[in-house]
């Protein structure tokens, strides 16, 4: 059996990611550290689109609102997950980064010295949601540790 000192869990609270959370928690051994990575996709940078007629103040308000709203949603998700993690007595760390999901995961895998990475499977096409997926091929080529993909719960 793999000795798992560091598990990297990439999750942002979607249904697919919740399945990954369950599996990651199940894999935790007494001395395992769970590294929870939350990526804010960089597509948010383009979310003001080609707006050109608003005043600077309106755009500032919007920018701050979106940042705060993303923050609130992450906090909610973290609160739920951390409750569960604490209940199981697992040591954990959370990191929030802005960027391309796959690149952030690759970088954090090195930084956290992960032995295993757990992610959710891509959202089935009939379910709507944010379109920002990990490119599995990029991950497979760049990662040096095993990658576990939790099946989508049906």
């Amino acid at each position, binding site marked *: 059996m793999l000795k798992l000192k560091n598990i990297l869990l990439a999750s942002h609270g979607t249904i697919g990611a919740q399945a990954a959370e369950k599996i990651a928690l199940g894999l935790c051994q007494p001395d395992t550290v769970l590294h929870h990575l939350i990526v804010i996709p960089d597509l948010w940078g383009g979310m*003001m689109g080609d*707006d050109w007629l608003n*005043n*600077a*103040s309106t*755009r*500032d308000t919007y*920018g701050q609102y979106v940042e705060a709203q993303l923050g609130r949603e992450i906090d909610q998700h973290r609160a739920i997950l951390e409750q569960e993690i604490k209940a199981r007595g697992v040591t954990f760390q959370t990191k929030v980064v802005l960027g391309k999901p796959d690149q952030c995961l690759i970088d954090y895998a090195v930084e956290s010295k992960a032995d295993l990475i757990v992610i959710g499977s891509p959202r089935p096409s009939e379910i709507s949601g944010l379109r920002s997926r990990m490119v599995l091929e990029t991950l497979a080529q760049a990662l040096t540790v095993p990658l576990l993909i939790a099946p989508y719960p049906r």
Partner: protein
Amino acid sequence: MMHEDKFDRGSALTIFKSDRHEDLTALALALVIALLVYLFI
């Protein structure tokens, strides 16, 4: 600290920091162009 803030204009989609500066600059630019056209064309 204040000094640094002054020249960190962030990455908003306009180069103008404060409210309405962009609109006023556009107006000023238009008036200058109108003046040039009036004088030289």
